[in-house]
């Protein structure tokens, strides 16, 4: 098998990553089958880590299942559920099982999900977690102990895209200084806003992969505008969704037009489809992105 996400990051190739979700249970054949539609379409698959604080199979286990099917996973890892011992332990395990790409983030608070009373950990934050991975890469753990075999992760992180949010931009800068090799962003709906964001972080030498969530309805667009940090669905897009005969088709058209703009601005796109992947290959073909 050829693992080449890091090589692709360092090339000029326009990248496509797609978010996939582990099952909520032990039956994995249906989700693995669903993900199989992405073969030859995506460069790598981000495997979510109990996304929205909703308990699922571990990202490590599902990443390994996808690896066995010939996919290239990007294992997501959050600070919410593990202390520094658990994080290091899972990172070593993931590396030993062949997982080479990771995406590190803080993680939604437990009250957002289906176990709202669980104790949140946040022993490290996302900046410290990136630093930790770079320590493991150098062959030592966070306590300074030598490892019997270190790691060599291709490690990335996430960012919002609001150019006005100075604190977010400073945090992104810290992530890059600590060794983030790629950044996947919050969903882009307002290309103008994303362009300003890219200008604001122009001094950071890191590939930025723009997030994308195809709209499915006007209600979804309204919800995102109101509740998701840094997401701005422009009025014109809202009107298109409102007038659409088929909102899902319209959402795909809007997303494909956005991708065409993003090709000029970012190193790639990160598609978060929410649910099945049946429309992802179609979306990419609408955007004129050829098969991998």
């Amino acid at each position, binding site marked *: 098998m050829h693992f080449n996400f890091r090589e692709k990051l360092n090339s000029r190739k326009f990248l496509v990553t797609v978010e996939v979700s582990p099952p909520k249970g032990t039956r994995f054949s249906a989700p693995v089958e669903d993900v199989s539609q992405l073969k030859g379409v995506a460069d790598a698959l981000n495997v979510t880590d109990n996304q929205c604080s909703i308990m699922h199979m571990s990202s490590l286990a599902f990443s390994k299942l996808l690896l066995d099917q010939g996919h290239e996973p990007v294992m997501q890892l959050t*600070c*919410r559920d593990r202390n*520094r011992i658990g994080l290091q332990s899972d990172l070593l395990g993931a590396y030993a099982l062949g997982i080479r790409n990771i995406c590190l*983030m*803080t993680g*939604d*608070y437990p*009250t*957002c999900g289906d176990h709202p009373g669980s104790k*949140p950990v*946040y*022993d*490290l*934050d*996302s*900046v*410290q977690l990136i*630093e930790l991975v770079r320590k493991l890469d150098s062959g030592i753990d*966070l306590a300074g102990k030598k490892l019997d075999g270190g790691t060599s992760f291709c490690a990335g992180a*996430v*960012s*919002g895209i609001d150019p006005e949010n*100075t*604190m*977010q931009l*400073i*945090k992104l*800068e*810290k992530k890059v*200084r*600590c060794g983030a090799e790629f950044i996947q962003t*919050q969903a882009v709906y307002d290309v103008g806003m994303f362009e300003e964001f890219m200008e604001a972080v122009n001094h950071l030498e890191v590939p930025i992969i723009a997030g994308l969530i195809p709209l499915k309805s006007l209600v979804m667009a309204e919800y995102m505008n*109101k*509740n*998701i*940090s*840094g997401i701005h669905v422009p009025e014109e897009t809202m009107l298109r969704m409102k007038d659409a005969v088929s909102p899902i088709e319209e959402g795909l058209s809007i997303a494909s037009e956005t991708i065409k703009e993003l090709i000029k601005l970012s190193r790639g796109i990160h598609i978060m489809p929410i649910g099945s992947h049946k429309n992802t290959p179609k979306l990419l073909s609408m955007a004129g992105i050829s098969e991998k």
Partner: protein
Amino acid sequence: MIITSAKPFEEILSLLKDEDDIFVVGCNVCAAKLKTGGEPEVLEMCRRLEESGKHVVGWVLPTAACSIRSFESLAEKNEKIKDARCILVMGCGSGVSAVSTVVDLPIYGSNNTLSLGGTSGGELLSNQCVMCGDCTINEYGGLCPKSQCPKALLNGPCGGAVDGMCEVNREKDCVWDLIYERLKKIDRLDLLYVIHAPKEHGFK
């Protein structure tokens, strides 16, 4: 100041269901300020317990429930404590613990202990400090993200705040916005670029 809130009276009654001859210990410091254990609240508690068929043998309001000298010092203030078969402390968890070290009777607390806080201009400030034992508040202009950010993030905000309001509680300002404003005011925005190491929890 320790921030407490009163447990619902029904919960207190349920705690005391197998108890009688109750002696009530208030706290004239934090709990009095927060109206969860000062004299009016102690008197109200005694009245409601009596109304519910319980016998209250007496009460006392020490300066601070968390700094009790001895059983005798309590008995000096109200010797009825000698007739008690259980104690209800209207203070914080620390007050309950301190009283339990000098009284050999079943002991109950009437409050929930929420956080370490204070007041400013009459406004209640909760979650000002988590007493982590590794204080770095000076690096944030005097606002502690460890206590005021639900995720205790040390290097900047999470991606969850919307319009400056916290992901976990949309009614509460994101402390990172407050830290930013504060550092801007004192001309120390440079502090935002410092990469902070993980806390040393094990040494508390």
